[in-house]
């Protein structure tokens, strides 16, 4: 690390703590850690301004591996603890590390309310569709019918789609990436950091031990171009190995079309706009599933809106200015008092 006129230059190494990383070999978390360290190194934020806050679960060990300020919380509460940290000191860059069990089961309430308030935090949701740390029970994102230790005959409950939930909770920023795609992850994390408000990034993460291959159908090298679509603002929604497939609106639904067939040209293909406030199309994009559609990656929704932490402090400053009560003594003597002589 070198300092030059307050401008700091870091390498990812500056964000590595001295603790041995204890995730299973082959776990998707290793790649995510590396993507976060790379992102932080290039954001231009001083290291002491980062606070990494987590809940409980495999992913939540994350803060121990970071050389920043870090807080390992309790199960489900990462978003609430982060809300406290950021509201207490809006000058900090707060990163919330959570998983599908932590954020969507036990901590569901905190997630939706952080999103509703639009607290300026970056929330990385490691979604491996399984409880890993407790050794393999189904989670709220497990696919219906998934066989796990607590669903030996397959789950009978439908899963949450995190993006649908976040947008439903008035979310202003939602992005999706894949653990192993470090380039895309860094790109998406950077956008999340730049966005003022609750930036939720769902990371499709593989658990080698308890849910290996959870996303193999879409991440598999042979098929991935045909089964994923990376969305970027201003670019047409085109995908496929031969870049010949695209998305169009067919009535009220998204439809996959082949460019060059039935008179379809590139001009007919939808162009991505993450900044549009109306969540209709964003909702359709987060809900796309293979095999009917490609799975959407990248920044899907990125809409500017006032943040909670700023609003709290703006209001305090305003009332401070207006009120005749400037300290505790003023308060104690305000209103009706009497003197006993």
């Amino acid at each position, binding site marked *: 690390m070198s300092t030059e006129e307050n401008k700091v230059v870091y390498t990812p190494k500056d964000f590595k*703590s001295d*603790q041995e990383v204890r995730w299973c070999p082959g776990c998707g978390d290793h790649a995510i850690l590396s993507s976060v360290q790379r992102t932080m190194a290039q954001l231009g934020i*001083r*290291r*002491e*301004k980062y*606070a990494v*806050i*987590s809940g*409980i679960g495999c992913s939540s060990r994350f*803060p*121990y591996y970071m*050389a*920043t*300020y*870090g*807080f*390992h*919380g*309790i199960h*489900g*509460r990462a978003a*609430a*603890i*982060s*809300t*406290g*940290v*950021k*509201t*207490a*000191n809006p*000058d*900090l860059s707060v990163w919330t590390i959570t998983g599908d069990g932590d954020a969507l089961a036990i901590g569901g*309430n*905190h997630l*939706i*309310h952080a999103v509703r308030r639009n607290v300026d935090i970056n929330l990385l949701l490691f979604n491996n569709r399984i409880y890993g740390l407790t050794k393999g029970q189904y989670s709220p994102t497990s696919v219906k019918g998934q066989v796990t230790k607590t669903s030996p005959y397959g789950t009978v409950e439908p899963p949450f789609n995190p993006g649908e939930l976040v947008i439903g909770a008035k979310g202003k920023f939602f992005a999706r990436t894949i653990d192993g795609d470090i380039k895309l992850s860094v790109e998406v994390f950077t956008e999340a950091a730049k966005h003022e408000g609750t930036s939720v990034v769902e990371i499709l993460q593989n658990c080698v031990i308890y849910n290996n291959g959870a996303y193999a159908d879409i991440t598999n090298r042979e098929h991935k171009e045909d089964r994923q679509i990376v969305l970027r603002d201003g670019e047409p929604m085109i995908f496929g190995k031969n870049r010949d497939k695209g998305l169009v609106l067919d009535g009220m639904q998204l439809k996959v079309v082949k460019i060059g067939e039935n008179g379809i040209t590139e001009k007919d293909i939808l162009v991505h706009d993450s900044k549009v406030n109306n969540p209709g199309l964003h909702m359709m994009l987060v809900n796309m599933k293979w095999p009917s559609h490609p799975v959407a990656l990248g920044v899907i929704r990125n809409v500017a809106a006032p943040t909670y932490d700023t609003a*709290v402090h703006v*209001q*305090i400053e305003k*009332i*401070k200015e*207006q*009120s005749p*009560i*400037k*300290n*505790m*003594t003023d*308060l*104690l*003597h305000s*209103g*009706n*008092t*009497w*003197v*006993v*002589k």
Partner: protein
Amino acid sequence: MTKKRELIELDDVVIRFSGDSGDGMQLTGTLFSNTAALLGNDIATFPDYPAEIRAPQGTVGGVSGFQVHIGHSDIRTPGDLADVLVAMNPAALKANARWLKPGATIIYDRDNFTPKNIQKAGYKEDPIAEDRLQDFNIIPAPITSLTKEALKDMNLDMKTVLRSKNMFALGMIYWLFNRPLKYTEEFFQQKFKRKPEVVEANEKVLKAGYYYAETIEALHSTYVVKPAEIEKGVYRNINGNTATAWGLIAAAERAGLQLFVGSYPITPATGILEELALRKDLGVITVQAEDEIAGITTSIGASFAGLMAATTTSGPGLALKSEALGLAVITELPLVVVNVQRGGPSTGLPTKTEQSDLMQVLWGRNGESPVAVVAASTPANCFYYAFEAGRLALEHMTPVVLMTDGFLANGSEPFKIPDMEKMPEIKPPIVPEGTEDYMPYKRDPETLVRGWAIPGTPGLEHRIGGLEKDKNTGNVSYDPANHEEMTHIRAEKVAKIVEDIPEQKIEGEQEGDLLLVGWGSTYGHLVSAMEELAAEGKKVGLAHFNYINPLPANTDEVLGKFKKILVCELNLGQFANYLRMNYPKYEYHKLNKIQGLPFTVAEIKDEAKKLLEE
């Protein structure tokens, strides 16, 4: 206004306003209390209301009462029995008949004593006869009809008209006790600034009640209660919840920190959050969280970030917070948790008072999880114990639970305004920038307090959390010996607070036949009982505890000075059990009450006398 007959001077008087929960009895009582306080009376108040906002009309279960005790001498309790009862309907009379002094004055709204209402309240036809109140000073006043009459020219809807009948009753009481109307009129003008017609209506009805009382023959005399002879100073009236809120702000000010409060509304603690939400002028950050757990965890986050953090709740909320409270224990972060106790278990009696959360506060967490515990004992000293909770939390890097209860929260009394300059300065162990070899769990060898490194400080980056930590480096440690040592350190750190708190005082006799022991909100009743027993020549002392964990250093000595010990508390004997656990050599007699009500002085005296005679 001076057609007065006889003016009788009283040392103290207890007035109870009682009606349906929509009748505005809480406001009526509060306005009367404020006027009395501003005239220099000592006062104590006891609001007693149902959990339902508008409980079934006309039934005993729906009765809302506000008792106020005003006096020329030192007033410690809201009084056992009332001298004057205002009953807005038969149910209010039914609910309170047994709480009247013999011969008390009963003013009731005769318009509401219809056969239907009389039966609804559980009487047959004649409430006065059925409750044997014939010898009392009964004033059947046509409150509803005269209120309508007073407002007939104002073109108000009937709902608004009926809503102001409580002011008619208040006007009568003002005349009866020679009180000026001006403070209450000022209140109307302030409160309804933008509704001049409401101000006018309330003032009209208030005066109508005042003049009615002056005119009727039924009131043979009026009373004065002279100002109390209390310590010199500037005073204000304050209730326990406001005092708690202000004590927290005062602690933050003396620590030079911003106050952060994450909280979730819950009866009877909500008033603290409401007061703190008003105090943005003093920089207070309040987060009304999505639930109790977020209330405490946002506060833990704020504490990690370097603010003075607190969360406020009542028993059921504390149950939800208990896992997170353990997180504050293991991360050794300063945090004040206010538990305004109410009747339990579960939802229990939300608006009634009880002291049954003591064991929950001391031990209601997984693992060996010590917290410091203090308890306020009067509405006004909630200020000092909230301040003290803040001081201990910040200087000892530990969660501190402040216990109050519904009786303190809603009760009010005169509060001598303290000189902020004389409040102790609070010095949290903040680690300065540039500290070499900082380690999060490095401690002061004397106090065992760890340093507080605030995020944003260059060079002090560190990680803490709920997993056990190495006693030196603060890294995650599963080492068995380290865990045992850390467990001892956490316990010892809290135990060492004993060196930073005052010794336990004994009031009354310093040694003798019977020591009354109490903690928390029962103070007023216990000290009154002790003084009355002493006046009867009994060798009785009172040890009333405000420091619960750790207990004051001289507790053993205090307990040993009397032949018998009577522990009085509003639960089944939790503090008695706690003392027995710590000091097993004494025999602890118990006086317990679980009715959602405070003790009466008489109950305590009776039990004490029984023991003294044994």
